[in-house]
């Protein structure tokens, strides 16, 4: 059993598994979002977590001081996800019956004074957080290390926990892409959401049925492309950023056979059986062609399809193109990860001469 978990926790297997679980959760959210399911999941999770914690290697990685926030995050996210699905299922069932959302009921629209209701709650939260942080700081000592040395790096060298998803992304991309371009698009895209998405449905109440694209798209990015990658980066990456299963000892000398190949090498050497051309743009033209097709031909092509036509009818041309650009930007991450796992593909366009790799 432990060997099986060690094997399937590898991103090659766990990424499709997590994606499938996400799809099932979103598809059957009316079942997941019931109290019965929630209590059942909690009752299953407690013995499973106890069994996991009996393993010394697992306990070691779980209780590493840097990883405590991730444990708290996993519990919080599980609870908040179930709770929002529960509220969404409640509302969507009401909407099916022709009733308004639960949040719109007269007793839920009642207004209260900021003082004392809000300010008092905030004071209590401040005190609670302070106590929590003080206790945490006393129990888990800050891991002070030796003075910084520019010619030495710890192994594994891990980012702070909230950047571990980004660090995991960097394994599949050039630093310019995963460090600057994609995070920039993520930040700008999140800022742009209120201006792109002017649909009033779902304002002030939980729903999934009324906003399928928005909910599926955002939650896929949030769960699979952010939280899942943080968990992989935290618990499953050991020395040399090699994959280690949750029950595996972090052996520094674990050897993983890997040889990554650029698309241009596939194209010229493997498929055409020729030497690589000297001119770098001729060498990479196939990858450049694919990228241009992905960025500039795919959006108008989708616009012709039924799905794209529907979005354009709802939000108009400009908002459609911005939305679709953000979606294909987000989709580029799982696409690139799958290509790396299946074909050891390093870069689709590799122009190290210009520091430009995709």
């Amino acid at each position, binding site marked *: 059993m432990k060997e099986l978990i060690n094997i399937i926790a590898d991103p090659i297997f766990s990424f499709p598994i997590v994606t499938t679980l996400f799809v099932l959760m979103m598809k059957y959210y009316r079942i997941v979002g019931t109290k019965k399911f929630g209590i059942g999941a909690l009752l299953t999770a407690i013995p499973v977590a106890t069994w996991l914690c009996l393993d010394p290697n697992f306990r070691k990685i779980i209780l590493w001081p840097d990883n405590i926030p991730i444990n708290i995050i996993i519990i919080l996210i599980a609870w908040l996800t179930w709770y929002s699905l529960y509220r969404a299922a409640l509302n969507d069932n009401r909407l099916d019956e022709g009733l308004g959302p639960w949040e719109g009921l007269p007793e839920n629209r009642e207004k209260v004074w900021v003082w004392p209701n809000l300010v008092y709650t905030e004071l209590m939260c401040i005190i609670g957080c302070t106590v929590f942080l003080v206790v945490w700081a006393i129990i888990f000592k800050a891991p002070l290390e030796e003075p910084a040395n*520019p010619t030495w790096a710890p192994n594994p060298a891990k980012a702070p926990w909230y950047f571990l998803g980004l660090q995991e992304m960097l394994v599949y991309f050039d630093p310019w892409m995963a460090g600057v371009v994609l995070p920039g698009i993520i930040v700008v895209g999140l800022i742009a959401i209120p201006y792109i998405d002017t649909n009033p449905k779902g304002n002030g109440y939980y729903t999934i049925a009324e906003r399928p694209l928005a909910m599926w798209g955002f939650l896929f990015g949030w769960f699979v492309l952010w939280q899942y990658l943080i968990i992989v980066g935290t618990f499953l990456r050991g020395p*040399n950023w090699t994959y280690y299963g949750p029950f595996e000892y972090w052996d520094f000398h674990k050897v993983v056979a890997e040889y*990554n190949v650029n698309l241009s090498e596939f194209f010229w050497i493997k498929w055409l059986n020729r030497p690589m051309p000297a001119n770098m743009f001729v060498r990479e033209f196939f990858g450049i062609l694919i990228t241009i097709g992905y960025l500039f031909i795919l959006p108008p092509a989708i616009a012709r399809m039924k799905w794209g036509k529907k979005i354009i009818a709802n939000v108009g041309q400009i908002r459609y193109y911005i939305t679709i650009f953000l979606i294909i930007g987000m989709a580029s991450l799982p696409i690139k990860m799958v290509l790396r796992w299946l074909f050891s593909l390093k870069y689709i366009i590799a122009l190290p001469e210009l520091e430009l790799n995709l």
Partner: protein
Amino acid sequence: MSQERVQLNRREFFSFITVGWVAFTSAIAGLAALAFRFSYPNVNFEPEMDFIAGYPSDYEEGVDERWKNGYGVWMVRQEGKLVAFSNICTHLGCVPNWLPAELKFKCPCHGSGYYMNGINFEGPAPRPLERYKISLTPAGTIKVDKTKVYRWEKGQWDNPNSFISV
């Protein structure tokens, strides 16, 4: 005694204000200069950009790590050539480790791997390690100059300054 108060006329007022303003500006400028000076360290612990790395006969076949901690340089002797590699990963600038058992340089940050000859083969590193300028002094010692780098993908590894024949 006259009760009249001494009044400044307009011209005197302006000369006072000019003196005051100049004093104020110079005081601010002085403080800014002090703050600027404070942002530079008194003692610089950064390694020198060039150093003498002993004699060619000091190096055996393979990777030599004796200058890694002091200067960030690996000396690699292979196939009759002695080269000085930068120990900075070409992916995101971490410091890789030399793994003698696996015969490769491996970066702890994102798992980039390089062969002993500096060529990247695994992980996300887009290009090989950089070579530093290396030359022989008249005294027969090796001089490594880190201000000049030679990059494989630009075809600079054929440059006679990027290696010495041993």
